[in-house]
């Protein structure tokens, strides 16, 4: 029980409901739904029917693998988030789906993370980790010429990066929800610098082990080690990946510089300049901030704008799922 609390503190990435303002939570739901819709379409078209049981069992695997921890310091423990690992083993879109299911089930079964905040949680721990893992992993892998030990080293680097990105996004969402940047960013990024190392080490060792035991599997899984797989995704992917890695380091540096000065106001100003800081003291329920509906008095128009916002989100979600279904030709069944 006690260590579980410490883990909760240390990992701190499963945002419960109540901490994100409604606009922030819903905005990330939209992003997540789009990402999942793309993932469903991609996995549906690229891969065979074997994928359904495979992804299901893989989600259970990530879930269970997150339990495997090792003692680090003072009662804290290192353990896996798994997004980068999933993406490297299964490919980016299967990775996204698997992680989305993991995060969703954690919220549903164990109340690890909220339901309204689930959009943000899935995005941070599922979409971002998987896409960073794969997007940054592929170009790095090419540097190693696709050698299999290269994949293990890349595993370490991208696993660390993916944790940092997840922590960064979580902080951004909290700041947008009114938590002072000085409180959100430094501890979050600091703690996860080390948690990320744990993630990286485990990912590295796991991939090395899998390559040593069943190299055939890794090749068939993501096509990343085979020369053909490397050939296929060269070009645009390389540039994209390098850009991602570069951007990540740039953002990291930008965040770290005011940190170093030790001036929390400075950090907040940076955040504000970069548009991170929302209207911290505005009514947190205003879905359409600064938009009041003309001719209707303040509170009613706030309600209306809230309702309109939610309706828009649902229409969008519905539209996207419909489009996906139509494309996949899912027939309603027997």
């Amino acid at each position: 029980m006690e260590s579980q609390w410490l883990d909760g503190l240390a990992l701190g990435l499963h945002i419960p409901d109540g901490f994100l303002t409604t606009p922030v939570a819903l905005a990330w739901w939209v992003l997540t739904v789009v990402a999942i819709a793309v993932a469903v379409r991609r996995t549906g078209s690229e891969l065979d029917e074997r994928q359904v049981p495979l992804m299901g069992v893989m989600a259970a695997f990530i879930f269970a693998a997150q339990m495997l921890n090792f003692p680090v310091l003072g009662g804290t423990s290192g353990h896996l988030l798994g997004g980068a690992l999933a993406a490297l083993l299964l490919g980016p879109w299967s990775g996204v789906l698997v992680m989305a299911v993991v995060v969703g089930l954690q919220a549903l079964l164990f109340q690890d993370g909220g339901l309204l905040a689930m959009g943000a949680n899935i995005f941070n721990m599922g979409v971002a980790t998987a896409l960073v893992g794969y997007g940054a992993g592929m170009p790095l892998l090419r540097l190693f010429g696709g050698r299999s030990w290269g994949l293990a080293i890349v595993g370490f680097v991208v696993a660390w990066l993916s944790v940092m990105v997840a922590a960064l996004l979580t902080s951004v969402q909290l700041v947008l929800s009114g938590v002072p940047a000085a409180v959100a960013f430094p501890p979050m990024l600091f703690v996860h610098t080390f948690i990320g190392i744990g993630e990286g080490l485990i990912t590295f060792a796991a991939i090395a082990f899998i390559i040593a035991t069943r190299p055939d599997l890794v090749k068939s899984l993501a096509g990343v080690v085979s020369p053909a797989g490397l050939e296929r995704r060269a070009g645009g992917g390389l540039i994209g990946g390098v850009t991602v890695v570069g951007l990540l380091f740039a953002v990291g540096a930008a965040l770290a510089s005011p940190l170093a000065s030790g001036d929390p106001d400075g950090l907040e100003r940076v955040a504000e300049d970069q548009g991170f800081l929302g209207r911290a003291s505005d009514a947190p329920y205003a879905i359409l901030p600064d938009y009041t509906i003309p001719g209707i008095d303040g509170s009613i128009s706030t309600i209306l704008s809230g309702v309109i916002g939610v309706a828009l989100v649902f229409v969008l979600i519905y539209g996207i799922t419909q489009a996906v279904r139509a494309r996949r030709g899912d027939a309603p069944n027997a």
Partner: protein
Amino acid sequence: MSLTSSTLERYVDRISPVHALDARVKVLMTLGYILTLAFLPNGEWAALAGLAGLLWWGVWQARIGLGLVLRRAFVALPFALVAVSLVFARPGAPLFDLTIGPWQLTASDAGLIAFISVVIKSWLSVQAALMLIATTQVVDVFLALRAFRLPTVLVAVMAFAYRYLFVLIDEASRMLRARECRSAAHHGRRGGGSIGWRAAVVGQMVGTLFLRSYERSERIYVAMLSRGYRGEVRTLDTQPLDSRDRGTLIGVLATLALIIYAALVW
């Protein structure tokens, strides 16, 4: 992560008016409740009390014991540490000053109100989610999600994940136990190896678990093929809601709307 879901599973088979409701209704009510909390401005204590009352009335109806729900709902508490900062971040009438090292922090009344509101909202949201899962079979939640037009593939993957979750968690715990049994240390010598080595051990466990899972998924696929699977996921279609389900849904959603309206307009 806690594995105490089994303590909730004990409640799922009980018989109560809440348990008897259709899962779709309960999912919608839960989402509606959490959205209502989210929309509520800070410091609306009467509305919060009304929402708490509504939920606890439901818990009482469901006969699952308020104590359990309240206690389990504290899982979100560590996050409240982050929210403490709100006390000092919001502009408002100053309450007191706090000096930590180089920082001079001023607590404001608006900040305090924001902090307390956020913690209560979060606490109630977790209770609502607990309530859903303590009164609804997880498979019925999946069916509800399907009825809400989530992509079939996604729900199927969720169902598989749920089915094998506990199988693989058992495998993982057996591995941890095996490690425990062999984690001996000589007297007077520091045991346990370096952090890198420990991480490598865990990495190998993860790798082993992956291979076992992968091979299991292949056997499952064969078992599915053997029973006629052709890549298309099929389930029984769901029944329409009955009048009690519809009545409850409308009643609860209307109450939530009323609470929001009252809080914002009065």
